[in-house]
């Protein structure tokens, strides 16, 4: 009976502090911005939820193209573990301290790689 097993595992997990702000308690605006996370929201640790709410509250101030980009990436970001997000923040901070020309060179390389990968396999 796999379901019994799943439920007992969930029972053990829930009291450990997941489920801080249930999806249903979010405002309509928050729900709209965080829609990519709707299915996994209730499993996010409370710190992560709070953080995502912070993103949702700042969302309206972003230019449209940034909004679009953020929205597309939100789901993948939500799927990372808190540790992965933590390390990604560290890396991002480190990268933003790299001299601009070096940073640009890396970005250029990544862009080239992406355009080559997006072209069909001929």
């Amino acid at each position, binding site marked *: 009976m796999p*379901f019994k097993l799943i439920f007992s595992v969930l029972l053990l997990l829930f009291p450990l502090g997941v489920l801080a702000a249930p999806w249903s308690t979010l405002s309509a605006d928050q729900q709209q911005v965080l829609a990519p996370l709707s299915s996994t929201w209730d499993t996010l640790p*409370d710190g992560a939820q709070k953080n995502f709410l*912070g993103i949702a509250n700042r969302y309206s101030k972003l230019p449209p193209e940034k909004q679009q980009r953020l929205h597309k*990436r939100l789901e993948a970001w939500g799927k990372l573990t808190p540790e992965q997000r933590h390390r990604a*923040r560290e890396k*991002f901070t480190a990268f933003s301290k790299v001299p601009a020309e070096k940073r640009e060179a890396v970005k250029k390389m990544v862009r080239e790689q992406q355009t080559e990968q997006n072209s069909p396999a001929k």
Partner: protein
Amino acid sequence: MGIKLNLDDISRLLNSSASNLSSKTADGLHAARCAALQHHQAEQPTHVKAWLNEHGIIGHHASHHHKTLNWGLAVLLAIVLVGGISYWQNAPEVDHSELDIAILTDDLPVHMYVD
């Protein structure tokens, strides 16, 4: 020194090497082939559907067993909601949202920053 090879010999040797892959590799290749074949026709979900149905993941089985589960789930949810809200109010302040927005709107894809 006396060893003579021609191109056919090389081909034969390579064939023997290819047929002697480790069983782990052979299994991996077999799995890769199966995965690829799954994508040959876009949809062929009959097996999957049958399986899911059989295991009660989809379909309607208003069995006694499932009703009990649903009640259990509802009670569980209630407990969790109460517990969760109190936890939420005491949760430590963690706000990386500015940084997260910067990452999520950056030129570089997010996976570059993920291990």
